[in-house]
């Protein structure tokens, strides 16, 4: 255990929308400014940044926009949304090793009004796509459905089972003013009436809500945060898992197609680091590009057994009054898809007692992006 404990001292975000009407750099700058101010810091005190490899906002463009004179640490996560929580891991590592004192984490895009991830790839972005797109696997929905189909087949699930997750997510979103689906809850029938994307696996309402927006976090040491009067949330554990045989999107080559092996290893790492078990988690924020990925992660972390997520959700565990509230902001299906970063913001709010859907007495929050994750706690 290092002597310096990293904390999330500030959070900031823009509105989440279908058309931001401004540049991604402006979105990044607005979120960053707000996260720095929320922590009680000034931009001049920031000396590190972390963002996604995929983020199009260059560090130099951002620091001259928000007024950061010197950076001495810059890092980017590998992959896409699976690396969302790895931003916090990298920032915490920098703070705890002394490489930086105050690290700004940012992610901003116009993922609805400009480049939409959900659209078919136009050319193979890298050689891994050679083993998919010529055979018509050219959208994330199709790429993921190829594994979801085996999971459904193995455990006898139908799309209605996945719909029960969406109903819960939309319920949480309906009372979260930041959510794009604020005051718009749905019934299971509404879900079943939405059009097929990949029949009979995914309907439209199983897919995340492609969105425009920016999110930022300010990560520093507990001591510095206290000096600045920040309402800081300690990072009890952070990890990012890559496994031999893994591919960023094509999880086709593991022996068992019905589990999320990165998530299983990630859970073990996180619970060991934090010195707690799955039973100690009060709120779980779980990255969901598509609803079935929540099922696989619930099982991978041991919140329920293999093939049991469907019953776990049906029995009401993840909704209001449940034993494990999941995605209390509405998640990426209900609040918006800011590549998973908005789920970290909600995790911080739960521990500050400031969530729109506050879970009373929340002490440990898991924020999982599947292959990266953090545990925040009081």
């Amino acid at each position, binding site marked *: 255990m290092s002597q310096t404990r990293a904390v999330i001292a500030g959070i900031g975000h823009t509105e989440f929308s279908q058309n931001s009407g401004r540049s991604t750099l402006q979105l990044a700058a607005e979120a960053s400014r707000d996260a720095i101010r929320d922590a009680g810091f000034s931009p001049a005190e920031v000396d590190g940044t972390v963002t996604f490899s995929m983020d199009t906002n260059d560090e130099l463009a951002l620091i001259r926009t928000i007024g950061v004179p010197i950076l001495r640490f810059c890092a980017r996560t590998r992959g896409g949304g699976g690396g969302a929580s790895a931003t916090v891991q990298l920032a915490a590592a920098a703070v705890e090793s002394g490489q930086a004192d105050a690290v700004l984490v940012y992610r901003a895009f116009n993922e609805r009004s400009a480049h939409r991830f959900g659209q*078919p*790839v136009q*050319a*193979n972005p890298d*050689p*891994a796509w*050679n*083993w*998919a*797109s*010529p*055979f*018509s*696997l*050219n*959208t994330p929905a*199709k790429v993921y*459905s*190829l*594994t979801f*189909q*085996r999971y459904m*087949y193995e455990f006898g699930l139908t799309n209605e089972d996945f719909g029960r997750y969406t109903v819960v997510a939309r319920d949480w979103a309906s009372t979260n003013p930041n959510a794009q689906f604020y005051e718009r809850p749905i019934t299971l029938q509404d879900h079943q009436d939405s059009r097929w994307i*990949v*029949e*009979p*696996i995914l309907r439209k309402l199983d897919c995340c809500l492609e969105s425009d927006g920016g999110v930022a976090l300010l990560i520093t040491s507990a001591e510095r945060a206290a000096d600045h009067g920040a309402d800081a949330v300690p990072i009890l554990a952070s990890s990012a898992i890559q496994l*031999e045989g893994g*591919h960023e999107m*094509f999880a*086709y*080559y593991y022996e068992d*197609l019905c589990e999320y092996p990165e998530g299983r290893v990630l859970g073990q790492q996180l619970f060991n680091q934090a010195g707690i078990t799955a039973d100690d988690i009060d709120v779980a924020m779980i990255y969901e590009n598509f609803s079935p990925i929540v099922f696989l992660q619930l099982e991978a972390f041991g919140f329920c057994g293999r093939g049991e997520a469907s019953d776990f959700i049906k029995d009401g565990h993840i909704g209001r009054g449940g034993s494990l509230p999941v995605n209390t902001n509405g998640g990426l299906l209900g609040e918006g898809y800011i590549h998973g970063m908005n789920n970290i913001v909600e995790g911080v709010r739960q521990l500050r007692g400031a969530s729109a859907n506050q879970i009373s007495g929340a002490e440990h929050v898991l924020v999982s992006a599947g292959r990266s994750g953090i545990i925040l706690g009081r």
Partner: protein
Amino acid sequence: MTTVRPPIFDFDDAFFWEGATEQKLLIRRCGECDTLRHPPTPMCAICGSTNNQTTQSAGNGIILTWIVSQHPTEPDAEPRIVILVQLDEGTRIVSNLIDVAPTHDQVLNDKRVEVCFVDYDGTVLPQFRLAEVQP
């Protein structure tokens, strides 16, 4: 009319696409320890050798999982069945099942398949048909 997005030939996988044009389903094989690997990589993760050879698959295997792929506006507007095949040699490959109606209300998991080759406007892809004898 099915149109396909062609692969981009890469140092490490050109042999596979060239093999397909000769009606061969090739799998990367380590020239030292004979370990098979797909998707191909330029070094054997077991023994560290870069003596990269190939072996011709007999093209028989089973469908582990499958979907019907269709997009309203893209090249795959024509529905295709996408399958993940476990080849008898041990490696897996994503491909398509042809000569079967592309409907979702059937059970294709664990069906035995055999390879064939189809030229889609100059791009030759290994494809699969249901084997005559099913277990």
